[in-house]
């Protein structure tokens, strides 16, 4: 029913989507998977008109619809949901669903101007239909219908978003990470809902990181990596495809893991006990407990939405935990303000790098020493870091925004080192990086550990993280489900299950 051919889109020289073909059969459920930064959302944004392709054709039931605007795509029968929920927050749930009927409903200004009963029927029918749609996605309209959309739980908001999309009576429904941030029982209900959609004549294209869901409901799966389609086939074929396993668990380099049995050092630098964190109505972390010993490199791995970044943000004071305690270097830092935590030597290198794009590389590094007052030592350390990372020395007076993604990542790590951390938190340092750059970043992480800095690493690239780590914890839906030495976990079939749903 939908055919995309050779779709390409570049963002400032980066090939976000590079010649991707995709064929969607009517009445099927197609999964689109791939690591972070693979171009899945860009591809879906092209299909729904939010991003224009620079090359390629899209045909819907044989008609060329390339480059149409979002509202035209909607009128042609392509509905979508968004990765970050985009409900009309101040409208009621029923009003949200009725917004999806915009194209089908007549202009009813006259019915409002003249209070005649005869003119009210259309509005009543629309409201009844909206209630029916809410029931179909598993919500009780009598309970939630009149509530503001923003008052609903995260999982229910996703359902409302799907009901709103179904109100368009679409031919194709595009779901961007429908179960992201959901707990296992919510995931189960969402899975049932998606599986039933083709019975109502709706074809589904779904981006999802939860492999159990993808493997369970999809008829067909396409895999993107670095903007290219690297595989396509049935769930069974995809599950057995070595290239896909590599794309998900990371490139298998020749390096071996640290010797097994490296256990927690004599003194514990960071001790987290029974941590509960929630935000936006979602419990992101539940009863997480773990420890990082002095001088250790500990990895937190787990699928998207498992709560890894939330944990790092809580450790560095950006989020406040609901319950639990965090002890750093013998002091309780639970709920302490960020600037005080930074002063105590716990430094966070956030996901997405967050270098200051308009400041030079040198200025970015100097900012990393903001809490220090020893000017001569700072200058010496900037020089030392520039020597250690020659890439940065060559670009010391360039604005950081002009650096490539990998160079920015190295700058972000170097900036973290400027604060002389006792514990360095690294969030997804290999995110969106080309394989060669990934190697280089992991070499740097290894050096930092060898120099005696304790590191807590969060990574999607589980294999690389486990190879580098002394110990690791596996998170799933906000809980620690496994822990052990890097080498043990690397061999553990359950780790593979967490990632590929196999």
């Amino acid at each position: 029913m939908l055919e995309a051919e050779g779709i390409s889109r570049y963002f400032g020289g980066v090939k976000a989507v590079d010649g991707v073909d995709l064929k969607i059969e009517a009445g099927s459920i197609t999964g689109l998977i791939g690591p972070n930064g693979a171009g899945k959302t860009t591809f879906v944004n092209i299909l729904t008109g939010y991003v224009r392709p620079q090359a390629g054709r899209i045909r819907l039931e044989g008609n060329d619809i390339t480059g149409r605007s979002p509202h035209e795509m909607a009128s042609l029968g392509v509905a979508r949901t968004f990765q970050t929920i985009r409900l009309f927050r101040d409208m009621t749930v029923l009003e949200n669903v009725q917004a999806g009927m915009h194209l089908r409903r007549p202009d009813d200004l006259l019915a409002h101007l003249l209070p005649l009963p005869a003119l009210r029927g259309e509005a009543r029918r629309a409201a009844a239909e909206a209630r029916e749609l809410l029931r179909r996605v598993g919500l009780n309209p009598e309970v939630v219908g009149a509530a503001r959309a923003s008052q609903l739980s995260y999982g229910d908001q996703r359902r409302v978003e799907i009901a709103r999309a179904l109100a368009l009576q679409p031919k194709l429904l595009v779901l961007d990470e429908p179960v992201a941030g959901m707990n296992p029982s919510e995931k189960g209900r969402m899975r049932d809902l998606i599986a039933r959609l083709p019975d109502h004549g709706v074809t589904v294209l779904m981006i999802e990181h939860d492999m159990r869901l993808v493997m369970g409901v999809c008829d067909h799966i396409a895999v993107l990596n670095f903007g290219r389609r690297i595989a396509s086939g049935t769930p069974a074929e995809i599950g057995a495809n070595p290239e896909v396993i590599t794309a998900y668990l990371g490139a298998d380099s020749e390096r071996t893991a640290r010797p097994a049995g490296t256990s927690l050092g004599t003194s514990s630098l960071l001790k987290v006990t029974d941590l509960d964190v929630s935000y936006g109505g979602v419990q992101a972390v539940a009863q997480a407990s773990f420890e990082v010993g002095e001088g250790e490199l500990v990895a937190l791995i787990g699928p998207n939405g498992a709560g890894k970044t939330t944990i790092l943000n809580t450790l560095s004071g950006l989020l406040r935990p609901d319950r639990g305690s965090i002890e750093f270097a013998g002091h309780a830092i639970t709920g302490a303000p960020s600037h005080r935590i930074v002063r105590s030597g716990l430094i966070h290198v956030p996901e997405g790098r967050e270098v200051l794009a308009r400041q030079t590389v040198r200025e970015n590094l100097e900012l990393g020493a903001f809490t220090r007052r020893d000017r001569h030592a700072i200058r010496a350390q900037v020089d030392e870091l520039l020597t250690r990372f020659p890439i940065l020395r060559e670009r010391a007076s360039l604005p950081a925004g002009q650096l490539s993604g990998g160079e920015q990542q190295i700058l972000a790590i170097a900036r973290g080192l400027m604060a002389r951390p006792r514990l360095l938190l690294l969030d997804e340092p290999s995110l969106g990086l080309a394989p060669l750059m990934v190697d280089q970043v992991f070499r740097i992480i290894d050096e930092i550990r060898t120099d005696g800095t304790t590191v807590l690493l969060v990574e999607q690239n589980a294999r690389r993280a486990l190879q580098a780590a002394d110990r690791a914890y596996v998170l799933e839906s906000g809980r620690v489900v496994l822990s052990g030495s890097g080498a043990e976990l690397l061999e553990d079939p359950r780790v593979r299950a967490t990632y590929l749903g196999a």
Partner: protein
Amino acid sequence: MDFFVQLFTDPASFYSGHELLIAQMGVNSLLAISIFVTLYAGQLTLAQVGFMAIGAYTSVILNIDARLPLAVGAVAGSLLAAVAALIIGLPVLRLRGIFLAIATLGFGEAFRFGVLLNLPITGEGQGLTNTGADIEGGIVPVWISVVILTYLIFCLTRSRTGRAWAAMREDEAAAASQGINVVAMKMAAFLLGALIAGYAGALDAHLSFFVDPTEYATPRAVGVLIFAVVGGTGFVLGPVVGAIFLTALPEILRFAADYRDAVNGLILLLIIIFRPQGLVSRGGLAIIRPRWWPLARS
């Protein structure tokens, strides 16, 4: 306090003593409704005073030079304002938020300097003498217009178009994914706002014997926005209440003498702090809206 004492004890002489004030409350209500329409669609535009000037000059020139009645001048003035909105809307509505506000404010100033202060037909900055002015006769048409437009716009916000505007205001990308043509809908709100502002300008010009170009400057443009913000932008009665209240406020505060402006500013500040949603909000709406009204709650 004389203001209220007279209002309640001797309404007849209050009316005859405050004719201009009452008429101006009405005109300002129309301007507030005009900016409300664009705000309801999520567009922060400050071009209202420019459109108002177009309406004012058009109707006065038609009245003096062609001896055409106010009704014709008002229609011609509002249509001309809408034409101007169509021309500047195409490029300007691509902007968002503060950039849109600055660009529309720029339009108002450019119009004032380019047209009002320069062309022979507008008096080259000397203003126009309006021999046809009629304050007493202006009050009734102005207030009838306020009532009708408030009702019309209220119905419009409840209709398909209004629902699309409300959706866009909350999230443009999500609105587009429901098939709402965001560009066309923005333009519709901008045109309707210009139409109303042009109409208000025509009525306003006929309340005074002299059309003064310095009236149509930035302070007035910001003043119109303040009417709407203080009154509340979720419901059309809000801007009307805001305009009436803020137009009357300096008069009410006459007793404060030299401190009038300071007290005026203080009251504004207190309202913004304690009623950030405006004087009339969704909660207040429930009291005003009768239960039997059709489609009020679908």
